[in-house]
C-alpha cells in the first residue's frame, strides 16, 4: 500500500469479500487480456499462409499439439465467458436490470446486485466450461 492508501492490483483483484460480481469483474479482465494475446498470435499464425504450403503446414504443425489444443480450449472458454458476461455488463451499463430507485429499507439489500445479474454471471461460467469441453472433444476427438 502506498502513501495514498491505494491497495494496488491486489486490492483491485481481491475477490474474497465482495461476492461473485467481483470475481466476474477480474475474470472479465483476465479473459480480455488473454483473448487479445491470442488474437495477436492468431494474426501472426495466419500470416504464415503468405509463405505458401510449406510455411502454412509448418505453423499448423506447431499449433496442432496437446499444448496447442489445451491453449485453444482455454481460448474458447475465455471467449464464451467474455461474450456472455460482456453482454450482461453492457446491459447493466445501459441501466437494464439494475433495479429502480426506491426508499431503502434495512437491511439495505442493494437492488443492483440482483439475481438476474448473478444468473448472468453463473451462466457465463457454466457456458464457458461447456464450450471448453466441447472444444476439447472436437480437438482431441480427431
Amino acid at each position, binding site marked *: *500500500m502506498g*502513501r*495514498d*492508501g*491505494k*491497495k*494496488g*492490483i*491486489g*486490492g*483491485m*483483484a*481481491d475477490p*474474497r*469479500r*465482495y*461476492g461473485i*460480481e*467481483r470475481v*466476474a*469483474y*477480474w475474470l*472479465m479482465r483476465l479473459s480480455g487480456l488473454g483473448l487479445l494475446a491470442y488474437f495477436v498470435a492468431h494474426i501472426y499464425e495466419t500470416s504464415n499462409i503468405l509463405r505458401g504450403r510449406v510455411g502454412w503446414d509448418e505453423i499448423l504443425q506447431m499449433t496442432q499439439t496437446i499444448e496447442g489444443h489445451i491453449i485453444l480450449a482455454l481460448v474458447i472458454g475465455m471467449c464464451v465467458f467474455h461474450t456472455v458476461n460482456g453482454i450482461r*455488463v453492457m446491459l*447493466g*451499463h*445501459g*441501466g*437494464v436490470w*439494475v*433495479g429502480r*430507485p*426506491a*426508499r*431503502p*429499507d*434495512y437491511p*439495505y439489500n*442493494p*437492488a*443492483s*446486485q440482483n439475481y438476474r*445479474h448473478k444468473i448472468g454471471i453463473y451462466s457465463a461460467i457454466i457456458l464457458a466450461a461447456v464450450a471448453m469441453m466441447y472444444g476439447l472433444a472436437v480437438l482431441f476427438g480427431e
Partner: protein
Amino acid sequence: MAMAQEEISAHISPARTILLRISRYNPEHDGASTFAEFTVPYEKWTTVLDAILEVKKHLDHSVAVRYSCRQATCGSCGMMINGRPRLACFTKISELDSETITVEPMNNFPVIRDLAVKFDRLFDAHRSIKPYLVREDSETDTGKEFLQSPGEVEQYIQFANCIKCGLCNAACPTMATDSTFVGPQALAQAYRYVADSRDKGKDSRLRVIDDSHGIWRCHFAGSCSQVCPKGVDPAMGIQLLRGYMLGFR
C-alpha cells in the same frame, strides 16, 4: 425489586472477550503499519467502535480514530473491519462471528494516523460534480416553492441518503489503482442531481464525469453497493446515469 434485579442479571451474560487488532501507523515516522493487540470484553450489543473506545479509555489512549455520532449518521468511523469496509459504530462484534477483530484504515484513502484517514479526494470529487441544484432562478427569487410529485422524489431520494462515509470508495476495485477516478460516491451523487426534476445542470455535470477517469471507469463490480451502510446503492445510480448518457433512458 429483588425480582427485577434477578431478571436483569439473567439477561446480562458474563462478559466475553475478543482479541482486537488495531493497525498502528504514523506516516510521519513509521515505515510500515504494525498491529497492536488488545483483549477487550464485549457484550451482545458492543460495537467495534465501543471496543476501540474501550481500548482508548483503559489500555492505550494514543490510538487515533475518528468518530462522532455513534449512530451511523455522521459517516466518520468508516474503517476496514476484518478486511471489509464498515462503519465501526454500525458493526456489532457479535455479528462478525470471529474471536479476532482486525481493524485497519479504509483502503484507498491516505492515512493521517492509525485508523484516521484523509477525505480530501472524496470531498474534492464530490464538489466537482456540483452537488447542488443548478438553475438560474431560486425559490427565494420567485417566492414560489419548486414542487415535486412523490414519483419525482422517488427518483433520487435513495441517493440523497449518502453520508459521505467513503466505504464505497474503499471497496471499489478501480479506486485501488486509479488515483484520479471520480469514485462511486461522487458518481452516485451526480446521478442524484441529474435525476432531480428541479435541476437544470445536467450538461455541466455530465461534462465533468465524461472523462477518461470518469464514469466509464466503473465496471459494475458492485462492491460499492454491497458495503454501503445506508442503502444508497451507488452501482445502481452509476448504471442509470450511464444508461442516460448512452441514450437508453
